């Protein structure tokens, strides 16, 4: 397998950075709570890319990175469940899923 030879680690990192910041921008800019949740998922997946890539390139004989990525996925699933439950409740309460309208918790 010559994946290492053809695609250097840098590319992986650049990819993860791109995915991370796309996710971050999604969280920062989009007003829809669901879309923001998707942004968070993207950021988590960017991390997963990093985990697997570093594991694969730097410590090919070990598996901690891969396992960590799996744990992150599990956490992401749980997190999505909680987040969606929250969003549904917010929708029931405020009849909106726009984050701008949900600002009760302030000074």
């Amino acid at each position: 397998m010559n994946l290492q030879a053809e695609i250097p680690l840098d590319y992986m990192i650049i990819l993860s950075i791109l995915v991370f910041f796309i996710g971050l921008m999604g969280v920062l800019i989009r007003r829809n709570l669901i879309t923001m949740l998707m942004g968070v998922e993207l950021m988590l997946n960017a991390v997963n890319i990093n985990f697997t890539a570093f594991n694969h390139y730097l410590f090919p004989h070990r598996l901690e990175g891969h396992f960590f990525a799996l744990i992150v996925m599990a956490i992401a699933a749980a997190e999505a469940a909680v987040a969606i439950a929250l969003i549904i409740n917010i929708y029931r309460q405020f009849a909106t899923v726009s984050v701008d309208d949900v600002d009760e918790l302030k000074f």
Partner: protein
Amino acid sequence: MDYAYTLIILLLPLVTFLGLGLLSKRLPVALAGIIGTANLFIIAALSCATAFTYFTQEAGEAGFEAIEAYKITWLPLTDKLIIHLGILLDPLSVMMLVVITLVSAMVHLYSIGYMKGEKGYTRYFAFLSLFTFSMLGLVVATNIFQMYIFWELVGVSSYLLIGFYYQKPSAVAASKKAFIVTRFADLGFLVGILILSFNTGTFEFQTLTSLQGPVIGQASTAAFMGLSVTTWALLLIFMGGAGKSAMFPLHIWLPDAMEGPTPVSALIHAATMVVAGVYLVARLFPAYALSAPDALTVIMYVGSFTSLFAAVIACTQLDIKRVLAFSTLSQIGYMMVALGVSGYGGEAGLGYMASLFHLFTHAFFKALLFLGAGSVIHAVHSNLMTEMGGLRKSMPVTHLTFLVACLTIAGIPPLSGFFSKDEILVAAFEHNKLIFAVQWLVAGITAFYMFRLYFRIFWNQTPAYHHAPHESPVVMTVPLMFLAIASVVAGFVPFHDLVTSDNKPFETAFHWSIAGPSIAIAVIGILTAAWLYARPSLRPDAISKSLSGVYTAAYNKFYIDEIYLFITKSIIFQFISRPVAWFDRHIVDGTMNFIGNSTVAGSAAIKRMQSGHVQLYIWYFASGVLVLALLILYLN
């Protein structure tokens, strides 16, 4: 001779005070007066017995010895400075014991009649007992600090008694004024005690006045502004005495103190408490005479000025008690002058002897005057001489005793006032001719204003009284008669054998060259008063008109009160207290509030960050992480 029983003299009035004070509600009212008076008669008898045994003992080479009859340690302050409470018997204190207990007993007896039916009858006698206790404690003090303790107690009993009619605003104001003015003077006394005790390491009078003691024997070299430290200390102590004895310019409280019941004025503000200043100087006299002659000079001038000043004012007052108050000032001035012109030891100590002699006689005749005035006021229900006149028929006893007192204070032989005043004039003549001239003049003015008073009350025209005035009850006239007799005979007490500056007897000669002119000016004074006031006439008004400026100034007591009022109201209250209160509320507290408020304002300014917009928080968070990352990158 064992004098331990003198403790009873001191403690009996205290027990009476506590008993009457605590049981005031339970006791039958009439009993209070009887208990108080009985006690006073007991201690008066004891005091006279003490004086008799003391003065009839064989005087040794060193004259009468001072005896410490009783002494306990009250409070040790430093290793050397220890406050004792005790009883010191020497000629001076024994003489004072007799004066105080006798006059006090007479005043108690008189008060039974005078205060009858007044509210607070029990309280009155309780306070009188407290006063008697304090005054006795003051005169038998073995050390200067004990004296200061009782000095303050005397001040407070005076405060309580002046303010006896506490629902009368003028009485309240007068009592407050008396206390604060004397308190101010006591500050000087206290600082004087501090300086003196620090330099000498003792409070004890015996050490302070001992010829080999630290004050006289080892004169300190330390000086401050040209006067030795001892002189400063003694001057400050005199300030305390001047306050209590109402010397100019601390005299302003005494005329107002006449707001108290008249017997109180007789006891406290004529016979006993106000001479405490004289007593204080006399007590420390060896120290004054031998190590601080400059202080004595000051005392002489202050005394002389006060006696003249007060005599002039007395000529214009209409309130009979105030006339007597100013006359008291004037007479105490005499005593101070006598101390001021005196030297120490033997013949040189004539002034000292004369001063205490005058104190002795003055106590009787001034108490008599006040009690007589009280009797008149009791009958007429007014203090103003304009509302009196022609009382000689309706109040014969009061009239006669009052006349005796007037003749005594005017210095007509052979009444006691003549002898004591004559000794003072002799002493003054030998020391300073100017002072002699002033005192001689004051003797004339004294005769004049006393007889002005006498004629206005008992002669002149009879106004329309609401109730026909009648003679006072027996309990009031008996003290009058007793004091009148005392005023007559007190002059024959051989004082130069008993109370002298070095406690050794000496011989005095009688000087017609001094006595003649002083009798002459007294007679002139009396005749002038008779000419002006014996019958209704327009002459007094004409004279006061022709002297309008001086008369108005004297009538208004030379505006000293107004000056004080200005100092207290405008300077202390408005210019110090008010700004201090303002400063505290606005600057000091303002600073604290400012710190608090600026914290609140600061948090108000940044609380907008907590907007509730989740995305904003993420912005902060993300940029924070970014900044941290960059920092770490560049710092490494």
